[in-house]
């Protein structure tokens, strides 16, 4: 899932200040799972903004809607009938959602209401952790299912560094040492000898070699 967190309300208020008719647009996918931009959070943000506007005596229309997925064209086009009512959209989608709406409605300013975070997992209620960089060439097999690129603070492919203590990372004792976990897991699987290999430098061209990445699948196209 893509995680995000809502921006501070003052920052949001500053960005929407020039506009009079605003659609607060939620997304029921990833950002709903991480309680940042789903239907509930969208309703709460819209309500907070209405109250703030009222208290300041501002004459502003603020309405809300939540799409199933802001990053998918088929859902975004559902705004076709209503978009004309607004002079700005405040999106609680991730960065991809914001840009998908902007792409489809180029004449309307789309304002981000959340800071997009990372590709991660819901570890517990109210607890999300980063676990994938989207590097384009998955190496999890080699490392016992733990990604050192996403989870080691120094992205070591031949770790752990000299700062690993009691399973904790040197940057902060709250951070688990990914390499300690990798060593433990491979030891458990009897596969520690895998780490005798020197892993060569990562081929980053799969991530950033040709500008923004795309996937083109002719078998999926009509």
């Amino acid at each position, binding site marked *: 899932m893509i995680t995000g967190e809502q921006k501070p309300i003052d920052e949001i208020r500053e960005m929407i200040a020039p506009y009079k008719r605003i659609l607060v647009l939620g997304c029921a996918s990833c950002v709903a799972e991480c309680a940042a931009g789903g239907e509930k959070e969208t309703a709460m943000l819209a309500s907070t903004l209405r109250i703030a506007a009222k208290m300041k005596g501002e004459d502003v229309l603020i309405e809300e809607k939540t799409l199933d997925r802001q990053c998918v064209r088929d859902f975004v086009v559902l705004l076709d009938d209503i978009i004309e009512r607004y002079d700005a959209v405040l999106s609680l989608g991730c960065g991809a959602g914001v840009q998908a709406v902007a792409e489809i409605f180029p004449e309307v300013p789309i304002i981000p209401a959340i800071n997009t975070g990372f590709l991660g997992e819901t570890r517990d209620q109210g607890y999300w952790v980063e676990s994938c960089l989207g590097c384009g060439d998955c190496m999890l097999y080699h490392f016992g299912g733990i990604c050192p690129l996403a989870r080691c603070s120094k992205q070591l492919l*031949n770790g752990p560094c*000299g*700062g690993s203590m009691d399973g904790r990372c040197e940057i902060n004792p709250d951070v688990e040492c990914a390499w300690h976990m990798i060593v433990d897991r491979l030891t458990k699987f009897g596969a520690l000898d895998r780490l005798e290999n020197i892993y060569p430098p990562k081929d980053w061209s799969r991530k950033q070699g040709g500008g923004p990445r795309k996937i083109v699948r002719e078998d999926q196209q009509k």
Partner: protein
Amino acid sequence: MNNSSKLKRVLEGGGFAVTAECGPPKGANPDVVLKKAEMLRNKVDAVNVTDNQTAIVRMSSIAACSLLKTAGLDPVLQMVVRDRNRIALQSDILGASALGIRNVLCLSGDHHIFGNQPQAMGVFDLDSIQFVQVVRTMRDEGKILGGDGLSQPPDFFIGAAANPFADPFDFRVIRLAKKIRAGADFIQTQCIYNLDRFERWIGMARDRGITDKAYILGGVTPLKSPGMAKYMKNKVSGMDIPDEIIKRMEGVPKDKQREEGINICVETIQRLRGVPGIKGVHIMAIEWEEVVGEIVERAGLLPRPVFD
């Protein structure tokens, strides 16, 4: 001026090597480096120059190494992979060799969150082991990553670091072996205070037969005060300072604490000299370079060998 690594010659000649550390200034004045050079001249075989240690911006390691080289010392260029991608690292290796620098120590580097630029993008394009391998391939095969040839290969005695005090302990020797297999000619260790643990680690390295494949130099740092010892124990990850050491520092009057720190350091070096597989010491007197000569002398390691 002879243009080979003095450190390499001492070690290959079977001598017990002594290296020290020189932290470049937070400024552009070359005299700071040259002053430290005078403190270390004829006291050690080679001088490590740190590379923006603890991620604090300082004069570049290459420039400070070049100043030391011009002053007639044998510098060890520390290079961290934190700040440069593979293009910049390989380019700087060629440049450093062209300047006559003959030793390089390949490191990951302290994470930038600790320094004065915590907003920086950490690069970490290569890790320290890959970097050792890259330098070795440049030197021995005259090739950069990807296979392109060099018109002239760089000439380096290649080093790497090892921390016997970090976790997971049993994996530490495997990682040391990887560094040596990648091409490390010499190893400098983290500061040693817990000699028992250090000897267990070097014993595991001997059992794997790797102490004959690279020259391992034990790291030491003289303590200035019990406060410094406690700070290092509690705040610096990967440091192991036994309580006896702290008690010993606390057990002497304040005006004798520095002397006691030097005593501990000298005793550590003397014990290290008797450890099979240890080929030298690396003295990291942090912003206290003036004490290195005394430590080396008291450890019975003067005079240092002289080459033509």
